[in-house]
């Protein structure tokens, strides 16, 4: 079962229990404009010059000073992103780890306390319902899912998990991401100790006098943190962070170009129910034990694809010239046959050239394979490129600095 709760992941005991979750027609993608919700930071974004657009059911800042400048600022300094539209869930109850493992192909039973993993919510045929981050907190799991899919995810979890596993939707919790090479220096001043966290590790801290659940994670390819705080406190936290000269607010536009350069898939574009983890190149999220034991939704198909390969693969494309090739372009082989489609694409601010991602028939997925992309009746010369386009700079403990 699932409930909406007023507490957050920083509450150590007795999560406040609200009304059981009843579904929410508002706030999903495609919601009527009058139903678009405002974020707790709405006025804050507008005061910083944020240009607001509807996204995932919320009015969200697409940019402040400009996507190019914001993107490059994040790669060189630290960018603050409001990702409060994302769904923050707490999954708890009897054997929550084993229960979640029936839906996610990732390692949860052996996941150490306070560590997080990227994982996928799968349907019975191995299609991806959503991608997510799951953190073990004792016997419970703090799960962050995409904003546009959160209500559907909750329904799936409610439907598929045993009755004695509870899904709390922490609707009054805001989420910030601080990303970039100077994120650690800026956050350490406000939340001493965060610099000790390794990549994909979290903990309870205090920031601007508020309890905050902070993990060393993010979706830009940079070192950085995600910070969960009560919505009532998020403006004070955002003010404290942006008081540092290294930190600037960054909009959705740069968030998209940053994750594209980092080769990270965007749900609803690069991955969806028509793709599997193997097709999407996300097999790293299925560890040795889960491959041996199976026992997750869609396991039969996914284990077969791990063994024999998937018919299509997600790849990167580097494109000649300067013109961006965006989502939906046809991918053609040397004979002009359609062998796939692009699922994301744009101009890379870091590389100053167009880049894209998409799916191709697996025999054409090798790096360097020449292909053509067709967009609005125009052909573009392209080659399969290694992902990520821009190297990740995560803070992995034990790795050489």
């Amino acid at each position: 079962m699932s409930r909406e709760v007023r507490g957050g992941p920083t509450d150590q005991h007795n999560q406040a229990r609200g009304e059981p979750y009843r579904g929410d027609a508002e706030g999903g993608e495609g919601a009527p404009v009058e139903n678009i919700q405002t974020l707790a930071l709405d006025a804050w974004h507008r005061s910083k010059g944020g240009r607001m657009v509807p996204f995932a059911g919320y009015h969200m800042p697409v940019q402040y000073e400009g996507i190019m400048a914001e993107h490059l600022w994040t790669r060189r300094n630290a960018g603050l992103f409001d990702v409060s539209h994302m769904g923050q869930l707490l999954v708890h109850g009897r054997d929550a780890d084993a229960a979640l493992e029936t839906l996610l192909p990732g390692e949860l039973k052996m996941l150490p306390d306070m560590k997080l993993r990227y994982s996928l919510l799968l349907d019975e045929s191995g299609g991806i319902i959503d991608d997510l981050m799951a953190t073990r907190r004792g016997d419970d799991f703090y799960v962050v899912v995409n904003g546009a899919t959160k209500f559907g995810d909750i329904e799936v979890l409610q439907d598929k998990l045993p009755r004695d596993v509870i899904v709390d939707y922490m609707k009054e919790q805001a989420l910030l991401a601080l990303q970039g090479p100077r994120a650690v220096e800026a956050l350490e001043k406000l939340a001493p100790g965060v610099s000790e966290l390794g990549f994909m590790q979290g903990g309870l801290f205090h920031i601007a006098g508020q309890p905050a659940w902070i993990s060393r994670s993010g979706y830009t390819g940079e070192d950085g943190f995600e910070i969960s705080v009560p919505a009532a406190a998020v403006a004070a936290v955002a003010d404290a962070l942006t008081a540092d000269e290294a930190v600037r607010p960054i909009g959705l536009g740069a968030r998209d170009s940053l994750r594209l350069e980092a080769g990270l898939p965007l749900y609803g574009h690069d991955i969806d129910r028509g793709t599997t983890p193997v097709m999407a190149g996300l097999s790293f999220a299925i560890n040795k034990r889960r491959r041996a034991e199976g026992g997750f939704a869609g396991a039969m198909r996914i284990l077969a694809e791990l063994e024999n390969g998937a018919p299509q693969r997600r790849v990167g494309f580097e494109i000649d010239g300067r013109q961006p090739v965006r989502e939906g372009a046809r991918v053609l082989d040397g004979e002009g046959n359609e062998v796939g489609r692009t699922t994301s694409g744009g101009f890379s601010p870091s590389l100053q050239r167009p880049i894209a991602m998409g799916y191709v028939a697996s025999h054409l997925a090798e790096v360097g394979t020449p292909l053509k992309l067709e967009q609005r009746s125009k052909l573009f010369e392209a080659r399969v490129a290694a992902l990520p386009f821009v190297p990740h700079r995560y803070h992995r403990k034990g790795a050489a600095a």
Partner: protein
Amino acid sequence: MSLYFTREHEWIRVEGDVATVGISDHAQTALGDIVFAEVPEAGKTLAKGQEAAVVESIKAASDIYAPVGGEVVEGNDALSNDPELINRDPEGEGWFFKLRLDNPGDVDGLMDEASYREWVQTL
């Protein structure tokens, strides 16, 4: 010399029978960082309302339609290597193309500069 604007945020500067066409400051601000522009080559004939140029910002692609008809006498070659010129100087160095007007009457009914600036304020 006369300066006209369209509701599609193009400007047309007419000198004799040659019209220079570009996009307004308002348009470049709305588009954001421009990363690509494709302009017509000299000799191409454009009918009024025909697709004439492409401008792409980091966010989106936009078509520019010929606000007046005629034969292109020059495309702005500087834009291919430096499309950001449109952001920096949209109503000057960031022009798109020049054409010889087929029909000087094409500009009738377009906004003059004062009307355009006033109208943009209401958007």
